[in-house]
């Protein structure tokens, strides 16, 4: 099952959330983890900040009390595809639902000074690009989005982002980036190494038999 490959360029509106340590409970609260599906989380992204009332799985945006103060509720930012935030975004729970909610809402890239490790990994499995910049650069971006432009262009292959003709380079491992560009599925790729895994396992069974005592 291959996902669709993505464009080499992401261009869109940037929504700013000026906070450190936005954890995955904030990105999508526990209630929505009850879903057994992999899609359909768009209405629950940042649920606690986006709505004034309590939500439940299955209840849509239209049935909720909207918090008009929250950026993603306000045009044009309800169409944002880029999120700009501060430090340690996506810390906490391993729930991949957090990335699914961002993806389903239409967020293609998140820019922060650092990310929670598990969240960072989960992004690449779902076509969302996390971009790490220094704290100073993040500060600059925040003021630029205020003063000059609310649009950013990200070039995936060049590993650069541009805002109002100012360019920033970012680092990301090539293999992770390729997963986004080509929409690769890890299971398929790994199973090409089936024999290598089997061989490793056979020798481990001999040298560490207690691991396999229940098999």
């Amino acid at each position, binding site marked *: *099952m291959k996902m669709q490959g993505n464009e080499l360029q992401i261009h869109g509106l940037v929504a700013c959330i000026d*906070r450190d*340590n936005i*954890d995955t*409970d*904030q990105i999508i*609260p*526990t209630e929505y*983890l*009850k*879903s*057994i*599906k*992999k899609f359909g989380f768009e209405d629950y992204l940042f649920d*606690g900040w986006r709505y004034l009332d*309590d939500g*439940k*799985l*299955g209840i849509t945006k239209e049935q909720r009390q909207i918090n008009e103060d929250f950026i993603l509720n306000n045009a044009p930012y309800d169409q944002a595809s880029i999120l700009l935030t501060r*430090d*340690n975004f996506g*810390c*906490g*729970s*391993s*729930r*991949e639902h957090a*990335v699914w909610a961002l993806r389903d809402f239409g967020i293609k890239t998140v820019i922060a000074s*650092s*990310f*929670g*490790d*598990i969240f960072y*990994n989960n992004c690449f*499995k*779902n076509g969302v690009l996390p971009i790490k910049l220094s704290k100073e650069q993040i500060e600059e971006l925040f003021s630029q989005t205020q003063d000059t432009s609310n649009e950013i262009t990200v070039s995936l292959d060049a590993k650069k982002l541009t805002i109002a003709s100012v360019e920033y380079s970012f680092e990301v*491992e*090539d*293999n992770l980036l*390729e997963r986004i560009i080509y929409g690769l599925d*890890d*299971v*398929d790729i*790994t*199973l090409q*190494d*089936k024999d*290598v*895994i089997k061989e*490793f*396992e056979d020798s*481990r069974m001999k040298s*560490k*038999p*207690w*691991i*396999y*005592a*229940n*098999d």
Partner: protein
Amino acid sequence: MPKTLYDKLWNEHHITTLNSGESLLYIDRHYLHEVTSPQAFEGLAKKHLVPWRLNANIATPDHNVPTERGGAFNMESIEDEISKIQVVELDKNCNRFGIKQFDITSENQGIVHVIGPELGYTLPGMTIVCGDSHTSTHGAFGCLAMGIGTSEVEHVLATQSLKVSKLKNMHVRFDGKPQTGVTSKDIVLYLIGKIGTAGGNGHAIEFSGSYIESISMEARMTICNMAIEAGAKVGLIAPDATTIDYVRKHSDLDSNLLEQAEAHWDTLKTDQMAVFNKEIIIDISSIKSQVTWGTSPEMVVDFDGNIPDPELVSEDKKKNIQLAKQYMGIEADEKLTDLKFDKVFIGSCTNSRIEDLREAASIVEGKQVADTIIEAIVVPGSGMVKLQAEAEGLDKIFEDAGFVWRDPGCSMCLGMNPDQLKPYERCASTSNRNFEGRQGNLGRTHLMSPMMAALTAINGTVSNPS
């Protein structure tokens, strides 16, 4: 070259380096629960695959299960239809693929990180993964254990391996003797307060020192459990006599295998000259009981200390502190000891083991829960912990004091089941996350040790446990 414990575990499980530069790591044990597995099973089925090594997998429902089953251990006890679907789905998937599950009717059901070690499925030197960030708990046994996302759950089911890049090495040494009333929960909260919730990002943290050597496996699990709150996917403690003693009691390995294994486990320690990327040494003898005041585990102070004043901190911290105080309903000059609590929760994979319950019970014995406390609940981490506690009469001690004694599960740690805070309720909780809304929309969570939570139930406020 001298190696750290993490390096050794990494090397032992390293299958191959991929063209991408990442490594393929062999996975010995895979724990599953109902929340992060359904989409993974669906992916597996769609690809017409079956689990690579069936018996590597152990499953149990924990997040959604109600804790008021009153012995009625069945699906019907789940009133929330949406929760029930997830538990039923786990059941179906385990049956369909033949995975061993301690289901809702099993007396061994419990929080996945509690039952793994106590049923002997967690053994030193293993690689252990689970679709749950608190998998770091199992690092207490000298395991390379970490939380993974749902896509990776599917990957591990299908290939018995994980694609990963190597973490950096970090060393935290705790030396000294704790003051009375200070527990491993206080020590780890203190560390998180010092290094912050991003302090361990990208690192595996190995804990050592005379304090670590002196504590039980239960206390070590509490520390490794919270490594993720310091940002570290992996927490580690080298196996020693305490570890082996625990494993002998809990696993059913025959003596021959055990002997072979022990010879190997003896080698699982950091070489003397090994170099860490980061090193922290903490003298724990002056640490007081820690209680969080804010909405991140790093927002923690001495129970009688001052809550930071946003006017007195640097500009970049100011906003976080203001927002947190506002959310927590804390006035400018209030201290933790001024706050009035509404609920008490003793439980979660951090602090629901037998030792935690004993410590809490020692505080409440012969006393009464304060009138101002709406509800104080004790949720044992597993069926085994529950039975053990009942055999020791702990349930009676709690109930006589006015606590409610429940059935095992994650419960109010994240409130996926009916155990939730109402808006603005203030809770003394032995869990691991005080994030906004974690225990219920607009609920206010203060993290602390089981002893401190028990004391807060009795006094209605945070006070000195020593």
